[in-house]
């Protein structure tokens, strides 16, 4: 150990007189040519926000991750960290401050393979940065020697800055308390010149100004993507040009693609919230200039973007969105092309023949309202005594009516479909009175074999529908149908946010119950995957389910304002 300390000290001394002043902002070292930039202003705060999470600490105790923690690689990493802490005389949070306290940034440039990448650590303690770099060089050199590799650390100089290189894929240098690492020597040289130029004449990287324009301060980490550069690539040009001609893309991602095609950059920021984290994604292009046919997704100004997501008891996932199917049908000749249009028009003629008494598809779509809500819910009681091989949660859909005639037409169509179920599968129809609302339901007989369904999947379904006010409820089980009727009869919450055109919420804890339904194959995979016993595997899966139950909710919203496309994802750990 004494010999190693001597070598380390020698290396540190050799590296000490590195010239230059600190580049406080890591973005000052990133060449303007970089197209993707990721920056953490305060890496310690980011690290502590993650490691301080109860979920993070619990995850570390999960037996499923034990193999990773016990692996030789992980054990060596811990030993290395302990060694570094010991050599530099500080614990890792303090070291993060000393070595990257002014920020850490990573940048990428498209074009070549591998893409030139750059990592900048802007430290607060030049002496410690110098010692850390010497230690890193020594450890790397020893690791290569152990592996019997030919590579050794090679030194060169650029404008009085020492550059260390290992092979052709790792180059690093220190300027004051800033450390630069790159997989390309040219990229590293550009970063050195950029850092030195910034010291002489302060420069602001476009990422810095763009991020400040659209994101609030205080992000734990931010990402900037130069869309001007992306759009200049042939692949992007082809992609954006093809969108308008592709009905499926328009239907699913029309607004997103259109906003991206008009934006100069994309910004994203991760923020700590009292109950978890929020990810904000901002694109500086919005409703102004949106392609006309995207009225499919975006309501006229002043109308709600979407209705509040439904949340009956036991909800696993809830999704609310705006989609004006009537607009799509009205403008089908322009929006839908080729075979898709022919198939749709053929289906319109066929359906009324197959399902007697039902309305035509086109008429239905035009009367159908633009607000849709879908919900997936755990069962309180399973719908049948017979259990299916694959147990599915219940799901429901609530549609709005643009025209009151829709309510009658859809009921007629659904009743006609029900008759088919009765005739083909021997289903039995029943009507339930739910607080004055008639819920029409169809039930499979439990005493009859169905060769087409040997696994009994049908015993997940007891399809039903009802009309509540100007909305239609369709559900896979009577239990959920009843719950949805109760939800719709409640007064709408006063503080409900109706601006977003899409709102989704995933109740991770409730999802854990679904995982519980699939416990046996999971337990089997643990036994076979890790060679543990049955009792231990059962315990591990129970622990995993328990852990997932603590993960709260994930909520997503998409809002399109006049000038901006906004996505917010909120992970709330205490909303269970």
């Amino acid at each position, binding site marked *: 150990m004494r010999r190693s300390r001597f070598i380390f000290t020698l290396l540190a001394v050799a590296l000490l007189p590195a010239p230059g002043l600190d580049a406080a902002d890591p973005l000052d070292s990133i060449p303007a040519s970089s197209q993707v930039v990721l920056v953490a202003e305060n890496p310690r705060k980011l690290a502590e926000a993650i490691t301080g999470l109860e979920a993070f600490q619990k995850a570390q105790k999960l037996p499923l991750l034990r193999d*990773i923690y016990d692996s030789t690689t992980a054990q060596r990493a811990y030993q290395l960290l302990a060694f570094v802490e010991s050599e530099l005389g500080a614990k890792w949070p303090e070291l993060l401050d000393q070595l990257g306290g002014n920020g850490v940034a990573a940048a990428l440039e498209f074009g070549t393979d591998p893409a030139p990448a750059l990592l900048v650590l802007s430290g607060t303690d030049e002496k410690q940065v110098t010692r850390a770099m010497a230690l890193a060089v020594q450890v790397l050199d020893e690791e290569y020697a152990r592996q019997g590799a030919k590579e050794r650390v090679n030194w060169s100089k650029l404008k009085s800055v020492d550059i260390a290189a290992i092979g052709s894929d790792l180059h690093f240098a220190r300027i004051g308390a800033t450390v630069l690492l790159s997989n390309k020597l040219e990229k590293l040289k550009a970063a050195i010149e950029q850092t030195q130029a910034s010291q002489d004449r302060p420069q602001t990287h476009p990422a810095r100004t763009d991020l400040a324009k659209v994101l609030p301060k205080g992000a734990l980490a931010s990402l900037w993507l130069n869309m001007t550069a992306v759009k200049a690539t042939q692949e992007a040009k082809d992609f954006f040009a093809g969108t308008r001609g592709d009905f499926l893309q328009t239907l699913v991602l029309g607004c997103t693609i259109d906003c991206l095609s008009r934006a100069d950059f994309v910004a994203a920021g991760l923020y700590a919230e009292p109950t978890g984290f929020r990810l904000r994604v901002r694109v500086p292009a919005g409703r102004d200039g949106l392609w006309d046919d995207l009225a499919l997704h975006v309501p006229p100004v002043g109308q709600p973007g979407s209705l509040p997501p439904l949340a009956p008891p036991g909800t696993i996932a809830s999704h609310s969105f705006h989609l004006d199917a009537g607009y799509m049908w009205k403008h089908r000749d322009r929006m839908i092309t080729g075979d898709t249009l022919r198939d749709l028009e053929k289906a319109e003629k066929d359906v009324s023949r197959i399902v007697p008494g039902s309305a035509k598809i086109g008429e239905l779509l035009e009367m159908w309202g633009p607000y849709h809500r879908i919900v997936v819910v755990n069962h309180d009681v399973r719908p049948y005594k017979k259990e299916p091989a694959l147990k599915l949660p219940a799901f429901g859909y609530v549609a709005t009516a643009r025209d009151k005639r829709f309510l009658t037409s859809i009921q007629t169509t659904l009743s006609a479909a029900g008759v088919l179920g009765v005739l083909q599968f021997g289903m039995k129809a029943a009507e339930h009175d739910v607080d004055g609302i008639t819920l029409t339901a169809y039930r499979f007989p439990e005493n009859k074999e169905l060769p087409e369904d040997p696994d009994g999947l049908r015993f997940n379904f007891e399809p039903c529908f009802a009309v509540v006010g100007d909305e239609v409820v369709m559900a896979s089980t009577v239990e959920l149908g009843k719950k949805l009727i109760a939800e719709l009869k409640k007064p709408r919450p006063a503080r409900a946010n109706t601006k977003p055109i899409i709102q989704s919420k995933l109740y991770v804890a409730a999802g854990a119950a679904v995982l519980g339904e699939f416990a046996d194959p999971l337990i089997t995979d643990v036994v076979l995957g890790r060679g543990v016993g049955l009792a231990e595997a059962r315990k591990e899966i129970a622990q995993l389910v328990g852990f997932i139950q603590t993960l709260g909710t994930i909520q997503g919203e998409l809002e399109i304002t006049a000038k901006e496309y906004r996505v917010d994802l909120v992970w709330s750990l205490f909303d269970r």
Partner: protein
Amino acid sequence: MTLPNAWAAYEPTAANPWDRKKVGHLYRRAGFGATIAELDAGEKAGPGPTLERLLNGAPEADDFTRTSAFMASERSMPPGAPQGRLSAWWLDRMLKSAHPLREKMTLFWQNHFATSNAKVMNARYMLGQYQLVQKHSLGSFSELLTGMGTDPAMMVWLDTIGSTKGNPNENYARELMELFSLGIGHYTEKDIREAARAFTGYEIQKSTGALNRRQHDDTEKRVFGQVGKFQGADIAKLCLEQPACPQFLVRKLYAFLISESHQPPAELIDPLAVEYRKSNFDTGQLVETMLRSNHFFAPERYRAKIKSPVEFVCGIVKGLEGSAGALPLAEALEGLGQVLFAPPSVKGWDGGPAWLNAQTLLGRNNLALALTSGEDNRFGTRCDPAAVIQKHEVKDDAAALKWLLSVFLQDDVPDAARERLTGYLATAKDVKYPLYWSPTDVSNHRARAVAHLVLTLPEFQLN
């Protein structure tokens, strides 16, 4: 060795003593390799008790039986269960069963009937076939062959389910004669066409093969010169009665247990074939005769086979007393050319030299490294040479090498290979290790590295 006493039971002599090499040979052929304790016990006990132990197996542990049944239940292994889980389930049995010979013979018969889940696409049917094969693996081939005719996996695999009166499918009848009982040259095309009519009308009802008489051709058929209103079981019986049948099966089992490169003369096979027929195709008796014999323990049969991927993998895990997961092992086996429950064709795996090529050799090397390095997340340190060496209180590098060579190669390695391994350990001591490594890290690393080198020796690829 003269032919008359080839199948007589081996008795140790001063010139041909019972030793560790023979224990290893027996455990490799009749099982999937041995632990150091099994080698020690076998060497001490002598051939009789060691053979008894392997032939009879030990009662399965309750935990093993319970776990294996749980994993084979319909909830854990539904019809559409992934191939990896299905393969891993069987590999897990091979690794943990207290009766490895039964699993080995199940592997033999599964490859004999060579049914692949790639076409069957139903894990329940494949498990059903496994149960049929395993039940008769050391029992009656007569019952096994008859049962196979109404086995749902086989019915899907060779299209019996689509074979109806007026539209018979010949696939099963053809393979029954060519691959399952007689071999080419012992039947005619007419026999196949006639026999195919006997297999019409079989359907899968509630996961069981059953005869639908309305779809069955119940007219007379002429097969092997005999005439009757034959059904499937009758054709199996007719095949079993053919003189070629025991000959064909004994030769195939000889290749599996004794040598795939040596073509045994008829004088060697005939006595066994006669006995096999006399015993009404008692496979257990035939296997016992082979494993006990002078011929089996003859020097020419030692390391005369190439390890299949399954034997390679199980040998490592058993030798290292590890608990590596069967799922990643089964996935790795695919890269080595052997997916359990999914042989490549109706002929099964070619075996022998076909197991080895540049790609599979590299694959074996990489898998051995992944298992022993402790740095591969699929296996972690569940198969750690450093840990097993420590468990057996092996103190230094030389002793560690001796231990590893003993368990994996019964210390039977060429001098040059031994010198290379010793040389590696000597140079490894001079390597400069990173400062943060403890002395234990360094010695564990050497143990893992030398274990990997042992497992990549050519001798370890041989069975």
